């Protein structure tokens, strides 16, 4: 296969799957799950092939329909895109594998629309990752948004309302992006990223350009749930089905952060966004505020999914902080944290889905050590992911925090250092509280819920761990945290270092 075609295949496989599912479902009921997993598996393999190709051969460029840029749309697979696409596709694959029983239980009869929109979402997010054209990015952004609104609406009774609220806010965000893009286009006359880089490096900064950049940042920030534009996130994640949340939480907001990284460090001169206008600095401080706000509020939650949602707001803050540092260390920290958090949050949301499926609830107040007795593997996976979120070695979470601390110290930004340290301790509070409950609290102790010892009645009365299709992805993600932690040096040196843009 001619290498460049690899690039277009990445999103195309997912789109093809998304379109095939309704058709095949007509022909043969119940095959949606299989088709979705198959598409995701093939897609993941292609992304890995892309990463291998890019690591050895350099950036791949693909011209859609043969039209040359800057007029034609160009898809670019450079080390950053390849790396993120692998992360995206693998986490999506694992979540989709996991989703079989979840969908059967939580959304009976809605398998077909769920899988179809899920594949659309992943395909669109991949499209954002590999596109080399800013307007094409808007198109993919909106495709992914549409898919995520639909996906989030498939849930319990409250889901359509939170999805609608997200729709309104998300459209505001995307429209701001478009508006900002308009200003940039009018100033420079081009939409192609590589072309813009050349044009902008020769251009003086001007009010329309600045306004455009601010609008773009605001728009993307809304999608990213950057503080204070995060309001849609907790409700949306809590009321949606477990699969939808597990798909959107780990990867949706990350890709929005990627857009910011792409624009600020690759399209613009890195010094521009931090020196001339303190845009990245603003992002950094907003990120810091988000970290604190998310961590503090997570402590107050009684529902596991809601706690994880607030935690996600905090974690996005770390990535924003890394962007805010605008230094190589900060960049490494941000990228590493994107991957780490995708895996960690994916694992945690899968765990909450497992709990929901076997215990019938995800209420923290009702967890006790019978949970661990009945579901030991899920509990183990939860513990590993929790330790990684707190940032304890040797798990992956420690290393991304280390790079961020190093980067903050380098820039003498003591506020950032303090925020990172305090938030690690705060996350220790809300995660250890859960770990303690699951491992140590005996059922009789909670007077409000005295007979939680049984959980859902199992026919054999014994262990009722979830099925292999749900357990395997959970444990794969959990052990991936250990592997990513131990291999983090290789990842940083071999994969991330080449992506650092010149001039950072």
């Amino acid at each position: 296969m001619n290498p460049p075609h690899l690039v277009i295949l990445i999103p195309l496989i997912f789109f093809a799957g998304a379109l095939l599912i309704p058709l095949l479902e007509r022909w043969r009921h119940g095959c949606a799950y299989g088709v979705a997993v198959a598409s995701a598996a093939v897609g993941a393999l292609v992304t890995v092939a892309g990463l291998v190709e890019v690591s050895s051969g350099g950036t791949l460029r693909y011209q859609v329909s043969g039209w040359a840029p800057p007029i034609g749309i160009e898809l670019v697979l450079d080390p950053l895109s390849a790396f993120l696409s692998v992360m995206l596709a693998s986490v999506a694959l694992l979540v989709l594998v996991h989703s079989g029983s979840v969908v059967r239980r939580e959304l009976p009869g809605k398998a077909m629309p769920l899988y179809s929109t899920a594949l659309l979402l992943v395909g669109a997010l991949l499209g954002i990752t590999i596109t080399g054209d800013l307007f094409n990015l808007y198109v993919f952004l909106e495709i992914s948004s549409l898919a995520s609104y639909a996906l989030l609406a498939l849930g319990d009774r409250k889901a359509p309302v939170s999805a609608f609220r997200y729709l309104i806010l998300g459209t505001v965000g995307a429209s701001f992006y478009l508006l900002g893009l308009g200003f940039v286009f009018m100033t420079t006359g081009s939409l192609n990223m590589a072309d813009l880089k050349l044009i902008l490096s020769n251009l003086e900064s001007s009010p329309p350009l600045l306004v455009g950049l601010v609008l773009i940042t605001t728009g993307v920030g809304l999608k990213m749930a950057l503080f204070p534009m995060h309001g849609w996130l907790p409700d949306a994640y809590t009321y949606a089905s477990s699969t939808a949340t597990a798909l959107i939480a780990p990867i949706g907001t990350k890709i929005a952060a990627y857009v910011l990284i792409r624009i600020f460090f690759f399209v613009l001169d890195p010094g521009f966004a931090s020196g001339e206008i303190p845009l990245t600095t603003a992002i950094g401080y907003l990120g810091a505020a988000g970290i604190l706000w998310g961590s503090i509020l997570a402590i107050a939650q009684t529902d596991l999914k809601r706690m994880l949602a607030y935690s996600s707001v905090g974690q996005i803050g770390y990535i924003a902080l890394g962007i805010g540092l605008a230094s190589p260390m900060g960049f490494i920290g941000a990228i590493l944290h994107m991957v780490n958090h995708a895996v960690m949050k994916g694992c945690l949301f899968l765990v909450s889905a497992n709990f929901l499926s076997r215990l019938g609830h995800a209420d923290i107040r009702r967890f006790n050590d019978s949970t661990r007795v009945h579901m030991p593997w899920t509990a183990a996976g939860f513990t590993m992911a929790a330790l990684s979120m707190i940032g304890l070695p040797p798990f992956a979470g420690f290393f991304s925090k280390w790079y961020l601390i190093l980067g903050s110290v380098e820039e003498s930004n003591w506020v950032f250092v303090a925020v990172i340290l305090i938030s690690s301790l705060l996350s220790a509070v809300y995660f250890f509280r859960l770990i303690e409950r699951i491992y140590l609290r005996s059922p009789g102790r909670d007077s409000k819920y005295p007979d939680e010892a049984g959980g859902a009645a199992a026919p054999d009365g014994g262990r009722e761990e979830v099925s292999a299709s749900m357990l395997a992805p959970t444990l794969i993600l959990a052990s991936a945290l250990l592997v990513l932690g131990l291999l983090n040096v290789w990842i940083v040196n071999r994969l991330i270092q080449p992506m650092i843009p010149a001039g950072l």
Partner: protein
Amino acid sequence: MSDVFQSNIPLWAVSISLLATLGILVSGRKPNLREFWTLLAGLIKFGLVLSLLPSVRAGKIAECVLLQVSPGIGLSLRADEFGVFFALIASGLWIFTSIYSIGYMRSNQELKQTRYFASFAVALSATLGVAFAGNLLTFVIFYEMLTLATYPLVIHKETGEALRAGRQYLAYSLTAGVLLLAGTAWIYNTAGTIEFQPGGILGGVEAAPNAIRCLFFVFVAGVGVKAGIMPLHSWLPNAMVAPTPVSALLHAVAVVKSGVFGVVRVVGFVFGPEVMAEHGLNLILAVLAGATVLFSSLIALQQDSLKRRLAYSTIGHLSYTVMGAALLTPEGLTGGIYHISTHAVMKITLFFCAGAIYVHTHKQNVSELDGIGRAMPWTIGAFTLGSLGLVGIPPINGFFSKWFLCLGSLQAGWPMVLALFILSGLLNAAYLLPVVYRGFFRKSEEFEKFDEAPPLMVVPLCTTAALALVLGLFPNLFFDFFELASGISEMILAS
């Protein structure tokens, strides 16, 4: 300088008990097999560390670079004299503790033994990682792992009290851990390196005096939690709720000694004697250590619970080493470092005795121990040896470390410290010897029906007591502890 050679032995020494953990987890149903893994790992670990002793005495350092992150930052294990010194103590005493644990756990019919033994193995792995850490980052990583691995041990009993103690332990230790991490990043930024070097890496570096002082406080807070420096010490007495073998090894040897090990590393290998003296940092450290020694001994007097009394005694003796580091004189530093080994052997004996008493008679308080010496002569005999050593009575090894510390304080021109050590000795006698007195010289009908504790517990405690005596008579027997200690002190002060 010393020769550095590449070797995998440090890595094996650290990881062997991790491998054993797998074995332990798998053989949960077969206690004898499970215990076999612990003992096997302990023996192999000790053997591996011992094999490093000759090379270290010859001035050669075994190094094993695990990962290179970027120039100057990496994870590496380096078995230098100080590392081998600490590793010998920890791994050697683990063997005794394991035998003792088996006796304790079985006699007391404790639950969750698999979790206990597995956590122990991981904790020892982390301790050796701390000992052999070649730079600050590796040190911090293993330090945090140690906290994690010892948490299940602290909360072993799973009572409300145990959970509270565990939470406090975590809160203190994790906060210390993040402070250390921040400090490491700061040092890297200031000095350009985080490798441990005798004589420090901050010497000759351009930095504002306030920055250096602030950095020092960050580090002292970071290592001071585990080292029991007041006022960061309060987790330690509360952690006595854990089973006694845990208190013995972890809170008298591995965890707290990692803390003082860290203090000496920070003082001698990161900041260095010159920087310390230049900014008056050793004075600050001496004040903290002195206050700790004094107050802990006073508080120990008031404790009726035997284990809590021993806990406060530990806090005091840990600060002996910290004071030795603060003195920065050859004798003082040697004394402080040597005290790590002497105190470990003596304290572990005392804790073993306390555990034997508890398991056998279910008595925890000093006031209830009248006449127990008749029933358990070996146990109380060992307790006597250990106590005398802590007070500083020759020929038990505790005398020698104390002697050098006193010499060191005179050398430094701080006679107040000498007075403090003498006072502390008297206070030690005041809170330890009454136990001996009550045990042997008071009568009570309580213990008439009891005889000695099970051999699995008595043999280890007698052995460690005998070791204290033997090492006092022949300080360099087997392991050259004293030679190592003075060599390390020389190495630090030479540069």
